[in-house]
């Protein structure tokens, strides 16, 4: 179980550009939940994800993963518990290392690294078997550099990488946002498969309300640094985008006017 | 008629061929390297070349003259040394300690004459300065410090404290300061040393001596000498006598110097080279110290720096600036 208790983050505190990115967010994610997180720009989605991942330290509040208080843990220390797929396909992998080297990096997440060969013959076969299921024809291209792959291919591999080793939570950071619709659909379907297969606890940030409702079992909406909506299971089933909007208006007394959020 | 002409032509050709062969056979090769280009080191090189010319070895006419400067780079100096070792000249002349060391490391057979090296034994170029024994000999520019300390006392008889400015990063300079600290007390003076690691720091170093010393002495330190005017400025302003280890500094404002100049050292080196070209063995040639010193005085500086020079002293001088 993952718990975020009263997380608060303020950027540029004490300056004219002071921005409270998160204002006391409380969220409990039981094991097995697949949570989608939406919100307009500046709502605090990415900041929340970064706080969970350890990229930034909240000004106040606690983060617990399992029973451990990881609030003070840097990213590398948390890596055994947290897997992540970044939004930028190239930013989330090592561009001029090969596919198998990237897989090897992910394979060692959470483990002690030693002086043995990073990609031995045994491991390579293992990688080949795993990457074949992607049906992208990459099984013979393990020695190719990551930068040679298309955006969609890279995200697919990144998903594979993230799921390679056990984790308490999988963080997906708008991972289809940089892809064209067809490829995005492919990656999303792959996401659904992998999460279901391994029963992964997942938090997926997305910019698309439609996408948020179409996948997972729970949707959370952030607005101005706070949780404003949290619907799951029965309540969420059958909901459409308009329904979400009505619910938002009721809670906040104002309308959403973020076009990107409404139209995507 | 034609046969006669052909005959003459053949004879002329044979004679000139003979002469040119003679000339080629007699061509000596002197290879010379210095660690960096710098007025003093360049003067050494000129001294060598001039003496060679006077002995009949002129570049292009009986002499092959190779010169390479290492531009301050140790790896380049090493490659120059290797090039010379491979070219097998009759003599290699190496000016300054780093160049000399790398040349000696790269050849044990070719005669090497070093020049402008202050401490050849400390630099392990020779083990015994009197009988070098191998293929290396040369001329050291070790300043006759004892004589210079005596000169300081003649110029400033009441001096009890002597200021010295030096760059701790220059091997030669450091040796000189050690010598000064040994000799000055014998002349009744204590020593105050101010450090300047680059020429921009010399002015501050000189100023730091004001009020603490009765006279300033500048050894042959490349860094400090290159900014000598700064020292003179301070000496003039504060009324402190400035003496130098090299004579060129007198026209730049030092009141006195009983020095040698690097051109003369170059000439001394050139004479050693000529001896070797004539067949002498460098191992039998003792390392030479500065042979020729001249007293130079600057009466204008004497006035500004508050010093009275005796007539006897002025009479001994080779050169007096009024």
């Amino acid at each position, binding site marked *: 179980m993952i718990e975020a208790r009263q997380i608060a983050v303020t950027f540029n505190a004490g300056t004219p550009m002071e921005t409270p990115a998160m204002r006391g967010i409380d969220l409990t994610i039981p094991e097995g939940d697949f949570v989608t997180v939406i919100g307009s720009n500046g709502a605090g989605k990415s900041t929340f994800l970064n706080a969970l991942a350890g990229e930034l330290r909240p000004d106040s509040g606690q983060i617990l993963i399992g029973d451990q208080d990881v609030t003070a843990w840097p990213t590398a220390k948390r890596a055994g518990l947290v897997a992540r797929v970044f939004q930028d396909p190239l930013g989330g992998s090592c561009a001029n290392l090969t596919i198998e080297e990237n897989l*090897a990096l992910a394979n060692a997440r959470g483990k002690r690294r030693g002086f043995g060969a990073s990609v031995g013959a045994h491991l390579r076969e293992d990688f080949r078997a795993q990457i074949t299921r992607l049906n992208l024809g990459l099984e013979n291209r393990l020695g190719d550099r990551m930068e040679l792959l298309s955006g969609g291919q890279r995200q697919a591999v990144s998903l594979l990488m993230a799921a390679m080793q056990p984790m308490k939570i999988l963080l997906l950071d708008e991972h289809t946002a940089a892809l064209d619709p067809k490829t995005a659909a492919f990656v999303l379907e792959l996401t659904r498969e992998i999460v279901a297969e391994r029963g992964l606890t997942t938090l997926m940030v997305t910019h698309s309300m439609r996408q948020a409702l179409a996948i997972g079992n729970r949707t959370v909406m952030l607005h101005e640094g706070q949780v404003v909506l949290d619907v799951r299971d029965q309540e969420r089933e059958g909901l459409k985008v308009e329904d979400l909007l009505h619910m938002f208006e009721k809670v906040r007394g104002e309308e959403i006017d973020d076009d990107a959020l409404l139209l995507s | 008629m034609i046969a006669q002409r052909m005959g003459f032509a053949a004879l002329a050709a044979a004679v000139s061929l003979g002469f040119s062969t003679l000339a080629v056979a007699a061509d000596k090769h002197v290879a010379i390297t210095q660690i960096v280009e710098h007025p003093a080191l360049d003067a050494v090189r000129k001294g060598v070349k001039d003496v060679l010319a006077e002995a009949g070895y002129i570049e292009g006419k009986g002499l092959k003259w190779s010169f*390479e400067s290492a531009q301050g780079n140790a*790896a380049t100096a090493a*490659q120059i040394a*290797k*090039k010379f070792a491979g070219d097998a000249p009759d003599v290699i002349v190496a000016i300054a300690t780093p160049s000399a*060391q790398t040349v000696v490391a790269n050849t044990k057979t070719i005669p090497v004459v070093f020049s402008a090296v202050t401490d050849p034994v400390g630099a392990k170029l020779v083990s015994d300065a009197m009988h070098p024994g191998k293929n290396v000999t040369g001329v050291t520019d070790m300043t006759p410090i004892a004589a210079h300390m005596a000169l300081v006392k003649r110029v400033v008889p009441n001096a009890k404290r002597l200021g010295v400015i030096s760059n701790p990063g220059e*091997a030669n300079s450091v040796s000189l300061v050690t010598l000064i600290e040994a000799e000055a007390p014998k002349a009744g003076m204590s020593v105050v040393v101010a450090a300047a690691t680059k020429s921009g720091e010399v002015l501050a170093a000189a100023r730091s001596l004001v009020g603490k010393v009765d006279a300033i002495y500048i050894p042959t330190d490349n860094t400090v000498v290159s900014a000598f005017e700064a020292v003179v400025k301070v000496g003039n302003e504060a009324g402190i006598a400035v003496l130098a280890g090299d004579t060129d500094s007198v026209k730049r404002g030092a009141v006195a110097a009983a020095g040698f100049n690097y051109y003369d050292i170059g000439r001394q080196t050139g004479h050693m080279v000529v001896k070797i070209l004539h067949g002498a063995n460098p191992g039998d040639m003792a390392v030479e110290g500065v042979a020729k010193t001249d007293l130079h005085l600057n009466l204008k500086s004497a006035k500004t720096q508050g010093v009275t020079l005796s007539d006897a002293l002025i009479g001994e001088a080779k050169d007096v600036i009024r």
Partner: protein
Amino acid sequence: MSQIAFLGAIEVGLLFALVALGVYLSFRVLQFPDLTVDGSFPLGAAVCASLIVVEVNPYLASLAAAVAGAGAGMVTAWLNVRLKILHLLASILTMIALYSINLRIMGRPNIALLGETTVFTPLEALGEAVDMPTYVVLPIALFGLVILVKLALDWFLNSEVGLAMRATGVNPRMARAQGIHTNRYILGGMALSNALVALAGALFAQSQGAADVTLGVGVIVVGLAAVIGGEAVMNTATVFRATLACIIGSILYRLAVAGALNADMLGLKAQDLNLITAVLVTLAMVLPGVRMPFRGKRKGGMTS
């Protein structure tokens, strides 16, 4: 070019190949512009020479030099990762400090090693026994050493730890997400890099007869020229090829220097070398997008 000059170029080229490998580790693998080498090269020479003149075994002295270099590299890395000083600045600070430290270690600006027992002394004796001159024996011995170092480095960079170090340089954020404590890897990588450079300094001093406090001038430029020159003439897609390129680049550079010294008709002198080196390095850095017809794909250029 005489045989001595040619073999001499190979010899100096192999010595500086160690520098090139060190520079490759910092500049290319860790993406850390590191000027410390201008200080760690003479540091290695200083430590080694100071120990040799008090009768310490030259092999131990050379090892001590490498350890000292590792220390210098870690200081620079620490300034960067802990005190958040920009890497280039951090390296300059260490380099400047080392000038004074080297003087302190040596006690004077120059320690002569001519005639002392060095790591090369037994090799010279061996050469005499088989009638091979020193200028042949030394390059052969250095070749053996450099190949050993290269293969060890290749093995290291292809290990799990080595891969983590490479990831640290390519994408530190992603590396951290994979559990790599990037700060530790930067410290370790910089230590290894400067240990190699210091070792090169120790060997250089022993082969050229002296450790001088001015030995470090221009080492970084020469190292870069070797790394970049190597990349210009061969494909560096794999670790094996990349390290090989460093060695080849260093040797080619020294051959070019020897060529310039011996090309009397071109009128090139040693004096022109600084300019030529600067032009070469600039060209190689400015033309990364230009594909040479005989090369394959090249490794990504340096990001700032």
